[in-house]
């Protein structure tokens, strides 16, 4: 196989390949979490890894989010490079004490004496009719916390490439994998490797309006951009990728070209990441704006089970299109 050969992979496989590569490349790396071993991962990400690497490095844990996330922090401080999987972002609330009071603070609280080279992966987002305790996007809450790095791989390349530098980061890195992405398939170079974990990415260029999305909403934004192009509106699509620290400059540079922004965020509107991005645009690019910043967020309800209600609660491409058309005018 040549270096540039393309292979068809799913997001799940890309993530698994990244974990496998990390396990092969560094003895300090191990994976722990609920059902990562014998079950193969709740979403199948770690399937086969227990057989390959054994129970010392692929560790099934009790349903003790606080204990195993905290153990990840301690292990990182003790010289390991743990990858901790929390089944969903809703469950990470059970470990929030460890994430907030230890992972995010010990480096600072100790006057810089201790690094916390820890990676926590978790599934986020809705769209699979799993209702109000498994569907939420709480990235915005966690993005509030200084001391953490938050990533949202929305593409195969990011699923494959973000983990490597995350493990090299001496700070806690939280990776949010949107549940709807695991089955996404596409082509990746067989030798696809590490990607940066600092910058947002422009996924599509356009001059009339900037659509800002991340994780699960990137596809919504791309779909909206396609529809807008049909109406003569060229939308630029930014994939935030890094939710903390936010890459303001990519967003502001885009606004300087398009002067209009729609932010698509699966979190609830109030106090959301979308609110933060909007505020930064207001602070840094107010005089570039040709229309008020628009937000397309989830409806402010716990996620309902019924499919039609769930879809109604989630950001839809049609809403994005309507917002963009409204602010661009006739186009």
């Amino acid at each position: 196989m040549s270096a540039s050969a393309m292979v068809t992979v799913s997001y799940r496989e890309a993530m698994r390949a990244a974990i496998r590569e990390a396990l092969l490349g560094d003895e300090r790396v191990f994976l722990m979490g609920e059902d990562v071993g014998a079950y193969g991962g709740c979403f199948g990400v770690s399937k086969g890894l227990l057989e390959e690497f054994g129970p010392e490095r692929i560790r099934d844990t009790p349903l003790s989010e606080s204990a195993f996330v905290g153990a990840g922090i301690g292990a990182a401080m003790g010289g390991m490079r743990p990858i901790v999987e929390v089944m969903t972002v809703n469950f990470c609330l059970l470990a929030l004490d460890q994430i907030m009071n230890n992972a995010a603070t010990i480096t600072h609280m100790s006057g810089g004496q201790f690094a916390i080279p820890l990676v926590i992966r978790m599934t986020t987002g809705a769209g699979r009719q799993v209702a109000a305790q498994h569907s939420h996007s709480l990235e915005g809450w966690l993005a509030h916390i200084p001391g953490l790095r938050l990533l949202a791989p929305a593409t195969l390349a990011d699923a494959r490439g973000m983990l490597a530098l995350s493990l090299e980061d001496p700070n806690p890195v939280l990776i949010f994998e949107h549940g709807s992405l695991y089955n996404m398939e596409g082509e990746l170079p067989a030798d696809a490797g590490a990607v940066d974990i600092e910058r947002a990415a422009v996924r599509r260029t356009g001059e009339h309006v900037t659509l800002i999305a991340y994780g699960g909403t990137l596809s919504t934004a791309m779909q909206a951009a396609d529809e807008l192009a049909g109406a003569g509106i060229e939308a630029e699509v930014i994939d935030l990728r890094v939710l903390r620290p936010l890459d303001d400059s990519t967003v502001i540079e885009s606004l300087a070209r398009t002067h209009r922004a729609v932010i698509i965020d699966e979190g609830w509107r109030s106090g959301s990441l979308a609110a933060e991005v909007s505020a930064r645009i207001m602070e840094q690019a107010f005089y570039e704006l040709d229309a008020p910043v628009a937000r397309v967020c989830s409806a402010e309800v716990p996620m309902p089970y019924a499919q039609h209600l769930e879809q109604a609660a989630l950001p839809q491409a049609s809403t994005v299109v309507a917002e963009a058309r409204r602010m661009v005018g006739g186009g």
Partner: protein
Amino acid sequence: MPSLGADMTSGTLLEWRVKPGDAVKRGDIVAVVDTSKAEIEVEIFEDGVIDELLVPEGTRVPVGTALATVRAGTEDEVPSARPVPAAPQPPEAHRLRASPIARRVAQQLGVDLAAVTGSGAAGAITKADVEHAAAGAVTPVAPAPAAPAPAASGAPAPPPAPPATPAGEPGDRALAMRQAIGALMARSKREIPHYYLQTQIDMSRALAWLAEENLNRPIAERLLPSALLLSAAARAAAATPALNGFWVDEAFRPAEGVHLGVAISLRGGGLVAPALHDADRSSLDELMSGLRDLVTRARAGRLRGSEMSDPTITVTNLGEQGVELVHGVIYPPQVALVGFGAVLERPWALEGMIGARPIVTATLAADHRASDGHAGSRFLTLIDRQLQKPEEL
């Protein structure tokens, strides 16, 4: 708020120089106003005692707003009645719906947002609307009710008063000045049917006389060629009434004297054209000192109101910049603008012989409603004649 220039629709009262109870006499400076082009001292035109200051410092009000009340007599007298109250302030105009970048671009391009029709959400003015308006690409289907009636008046009805704002930062001032110049020049080109004439003038005699004259003067009192040009233009204007005055209310109104507006460029960008009063009757020395004084005060932002509102004809001299020729844009409601380029050595044929002579190109831009080419030609010819007899200037 006095009108301190045809383009001024409102001003910010920067500073009071008097307080209630002060005795004032005609000509006293009572306040300083920012017209957005310059800070200008406001004179009072009657004698009396300041009774009440109606507009606080830092407030922007429309032209015509009473700033203070003055009672007749001396400060010992008790007023017999309450002074006439100031005209009620117009209610604050509805804030235009315009995007931040539309406002920014409008300032840069000198576009009056009140005259732009918005195409954005809920009728908001967008950047594109402003750019179209600046390019003249869009004519509103129906003019907004508040928009000034086209043409006609030398003092058009002011657009709705902007909300009171404190005096801006220097950067804002420069933007505001560009906006004001832009609005005035656009109005000039829109309303005034310009015609243009030009002639070349041999400056040999004038410069020779000047060199001789300056030999006997201390450096500080030496005359510059521009003094000769200004004097010649002023005297020519006095002899050509159709070029010296104002187009107001669909008619030409000749001016009483010749108050020569001199265009002065400012360091931060932009320009002003304050008056040299009675220039046709001033000596060269008076013109020189008057010019120096105006330049100094213009650049310090301290011109007087009358200097801004009184010019009857304007001279622009771009000779210092090295250009040969300037076709000017008339300052409404004036009807003529004289331009001088640089004095340059040029081949010059005289009595069948070609020689090198110092030549200046004089131009005239004039309002065809007030005069025609005949008057204009005569005017330029008069300037030439004056400059051939410098000793009479």
